[in-house]
């Protein structure tokens, strides 16, 4: 059991590091992205990475209460991506 738990701890560390690197790299793309589509895409990727960070934090602490947080972040990310794209397409969000 102890070797499995230590392997899980190492995997959690690696996943935290991968998600943090992902946030930093998509922040770079957000800053220097030449077109608006790239910026929306970078924001969408950052929302998904934040969702993954919350999921991994829930695994690390061994609790279930982060489920609602994750669902809310997923819904908010989708709605904000669609709203940004629609504003760029039509100049308005709700016509």
């Amino acid at each position: 059991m102890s070797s499995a738990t230590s392997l899980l701890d190492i995997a959690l560390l690696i996943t935290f590091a991968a998600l943090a690197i992902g946030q930093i790299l998509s922040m770079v793309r957000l800053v220097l992205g030449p077109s608006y589509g790239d910026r929306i895409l970078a924001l969408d990727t950052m929302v998904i990475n934040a969702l993954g960070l919350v999921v991994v934090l829930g695994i690390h602490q061994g609790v279930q209460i982060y489920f609602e947080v994750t669902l809310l972040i997923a819904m908010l990310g989708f709605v904000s991506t669609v709203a940004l794209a629609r504003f760029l397409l039509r100049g308005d969000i709700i016509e």
Partner: protein
Amino acid sequence: MSGQILATYASALSLLIGSGFITVGVIGLLKFNDPMTRLHAPTKVGTIGIGMLLLASMLHSFAIGSSSMHELLIMSFLFVTAPVSANFIAKVNIHRRTCETPPAPPRDDTWSTLNSPEAEITPAPLDPVKEPQTNV
């Protein structure tokens, strides 16, 4: 007991697979040099990466004894909404002419939301795209 050990190993393995896909997708988002190719890379982050993390969360809840399948809801929501948002971003790329304009459609005169394949090369930078003319 051995089932819990197996679930812990599977959870660690899916965490590693998910972090690998997330790293590859984000590096692709940074390194590709065309907006449409940049669009295809982070879809791996949105589906396989987060899907593996949620699977690891489910397996870990089995391993610690309080089993739950809540994460299936988030997974299905993400799998449904990822193509929709990718389609919207692709439409932004096409309409703002930051990628190659698609070729002429085989039967009709225009695409459904794009006016014509060759006309109006560069719109003004913050001009919203005009309403497409419908030709019934």
